[in-house]
């Protein structure tokens, strides 16, 4: 007879081993599916790696995909640490991009460092202020932030659509609904072949790590996340802490919008967030809200995405197949959480009874 039993605390090594085992099982399972498509699983997997890292160009593309994912994950993990379920990454990215774009279009001729700095601050403020709305509602009236942040995504995206089709439509685009391209001064320069966002990313990983683990605010956020009663008891100002943490969370997401608009698309589009706000929920969760792990997990996610689009063309399989692989890995890894808490054992009394009967 099989029985589910609670595990005593699992060591860090075992935890990692369980996760790696899960990824391995996911690959094994996908191999069966790939076989069903009459393809060689190992070849496909190899192509996946090749597609993500095979050439300098592909590697660059992977990094460019990873940057927004990492920063957004860092941002929402601050809110998550406080158990404020910020599902509004998409909206915060959009509003950050909107605010940055405002300055890019309005002052195209400002000196580059000044304009970029303005856009940088505007991006953070845009995302942060947008996030403050649900934070204020939560602090003041205990509204459900999951719903409010989610809904505000759509408002933000529709706002961008309105701008794109209305007031900010490029008059020189022959009626095509697009916002004008940024001036050169509003474009983030490249460092080492990749836009400078990668440096900001690494700095942020360190900063957020320090903030969460060693600062007083970070400590207050963690206490508040665990128990509002305890926070109150310790004299923590709950409203202020919620507002501060969510502003930082949204601000970091807003910065993503600025980077994407300035360095990648060189303009603003309604689809600027591109689902990163949602994917980041998964990555930050998988990384247990730990910034160094967020870096690794998000990077691997970006690689999977980049490699996935390569195998589509290389093997002529549909994009859905690559997404399925992602889905399977997620499914197995999240499922493996169960085994970090429980184990399956053979019930001992059964064996004992048979011993008794034998006697």
């Amino acid at each position, binding site marked *: 007879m099989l029985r589910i039993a609670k595990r005593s605390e699992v060591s860090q090594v075992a935890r990692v081993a369980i996760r790696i085992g899960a990824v391995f099982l996911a690959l094994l399972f996908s191999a069966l599916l790939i076989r069903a498509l009459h393809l060689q699983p190992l070849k496909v997997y190899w192509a996946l790696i090749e597609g993500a890292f095979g050439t300098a160009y592909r590697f660059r593309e992977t990094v460019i995909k990873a940057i927004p994912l990492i920063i957004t994950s860092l941002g929402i993990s601050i809110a998550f640490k406080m158990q404020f379920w910020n599902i509004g990454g998409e909206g915060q990215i959009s509003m950050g991009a909107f605010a940055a774009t405002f300055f890019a279009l309005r002052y195209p001729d400002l000196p580059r460092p000044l304009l970029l700095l303005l856009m940088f601050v505007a991006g953070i403020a845009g995302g942060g202020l947008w996030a403050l709305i649900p934070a204020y509602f939560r602090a003041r009236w205990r509204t459900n932030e999951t719903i409010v942040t989610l809904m505000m995504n759509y408002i933000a995206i529709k706002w961008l659509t309105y701008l794109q089709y209305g007031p900010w439509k490029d008059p020189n685009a022959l009626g095509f609904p697009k916002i004008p391209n940024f001036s050169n001064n509003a474009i983030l320069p490249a460092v080492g072949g990749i836009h400078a966002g990668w440096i900001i990313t690494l700095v942020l990983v360190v900063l957020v790590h320090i903030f969460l683990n060693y600062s007083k605010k970070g400590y207050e956020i963690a206490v508040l996340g665990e128990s509002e009663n305890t926070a109150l*008891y310790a004299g923590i*100002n709950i409203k202020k802490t919620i507002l501060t943490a969510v502003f930082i969370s949204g601000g970091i997401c807003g910065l993503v919008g600025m980077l994407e608009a300035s360095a990648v698309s060189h303009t603003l589009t309604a689809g600027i967030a591109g689902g990163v706000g949602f994917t980041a929920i998964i990555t930050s969760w998988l990384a247990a809200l730990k910034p160094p792990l967020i870096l690794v997990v998000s990077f691997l996610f970006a690689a999977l995405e980049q490699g996935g689009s390569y195998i589509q063309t290389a093997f002529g399989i549909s994009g859905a197949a690559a997404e399925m692989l992602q889905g399977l890995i997620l499914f197995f890894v999240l499922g493996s959480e169960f085994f970090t808490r429980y184990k399956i054992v053979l019930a001992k009394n059964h064996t004992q009874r048979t011993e008794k009967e034998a006697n």
Partner: protein
Amino acid sequence: MPNIVMEGITKTFGKVVANHNVNLEIKFGEIHALLGENGAGKSTLVNMLSGIYSPDSGSIYIRGKEVKITSPRVAQELGIGMIHQHFKLVEVMTAKENIILGLKTGFFLKQENLSKEIKEISARYGLEVEPDKKVYEMSVGEKQNLEILKVLYRGADILILDEPTAVLTPQETARLFEIVRRLKEKGCAVVFITHKMNEVMEIADRISVLRKGEVVKTVDKDKITSKELAELMVGHPVDLSIKREQGVRDGVCLEVKNLQAYNEEGVAVLKDISFTIAKGEILGVAGVAGSGQKELCEAIAGLYPVHSGEIIFNGESLIHMTPREIITKGISMSFVPEDRLGMGLVASMDIVDNLILKEYHTQKGLFIKRRPIAEKAHELVEKLDISTPHIYTPIRQLSGGNIQKVLVGRELASQPKLLITAYPVRGLDINVSYRIYDLLNEEKKKGVAILFVGEDLDVLRELCDRIMVICDGEVTGIVDAGKVSKEQLGLLMAGERNVETEVAHHA
């Protein structure tokens, strides 16, 4: 042989052995007390009878037949009924609805028959339950009667009562004991779990003492004294008296005047409460659970909204101060809730991070310095004998008693001027409880004013200088702890005001 036998029962949770090779026999028609300190394995043991856990090894026989109790439903079919310490009732439903909840009945209820059956059982065992009364309108005693009725209705003749008297007044306890005796007369087997010695001596026929997961002895009540029982429980001789230190009473520390507070539904939870505590005095607070103790403690600590009245600490009003301002004035509050973690500790954090909670804001700069606190953590672990693998182990992994030591230890270490402590020994074993009493006495000698909310009337009478009794948010009396009897306290707790006691003089 018509009885319940547990043979060689072992149950482990991870590395913790909750029960080791336990042999226990319970007869029908007897009241069998399971006595042991918290964490001795009493609850685990009976939970294997009620189908919540299944043993790793060992066998259970009921009426001579080996059984596998794989779920609560199986337990119910075998006639085992458990009355939990925390009632498992649906507040908005009537007694009747609670009784049939989860039972397989027809689509339509036969209301008439059901009421009749309930009344029949009530009458037979002396249980006072009105079938159509809603649970939220019931007193604690009535709810407990309903819980008992519920298991009887389901055909139980093996009843397990898990610390049933914890929430009752002495008078309600006496009534419960009558019911339990009636159950025994009707041939039921009653398992009575407790850690209160005097109850055991009053009600039990046989007593099994558990220590560290093992049954150390099963004896007839007549053949043992409570002192011997205490020694069996703890494993070594114990001195059960608490000494009352003479504090240096030096002026009023805290004065509360006409305090009124309302809960979220607008119901008055503190009604016109007035009292004083002198420096170097322990003022006890007695009352049935939920009489306003929590609200009173929180109101003083600035956590509960005060409607009217005054709270004056060393000549300064605390009303409208933030909790943090009150902390910096030197007021420390430790309320140990039933789940121990509800307020004051962070389960996922380690001892060091939990100790920082009350003082990190006094550190300079933006960052937290953990090193000095780590030393304190080591000291605390040493001083209170906290068993933990490491000071950096999340406290969630510690046992309830050890978690509590962290909380109480932190509050005592904060060198307060006024110490508010509610249920500080809840769930602690005898040794540590006495260690805590000693620590409280030490604080008292230093001139600290202490508000001590307690459960055990004996402890309150021995430790405190005066006892304030509250009932339903009102003060029913402030009495001299050395001169009041338990019965008198009981009457006050039940709301009786005209009790002949020596009224304590204000400090």
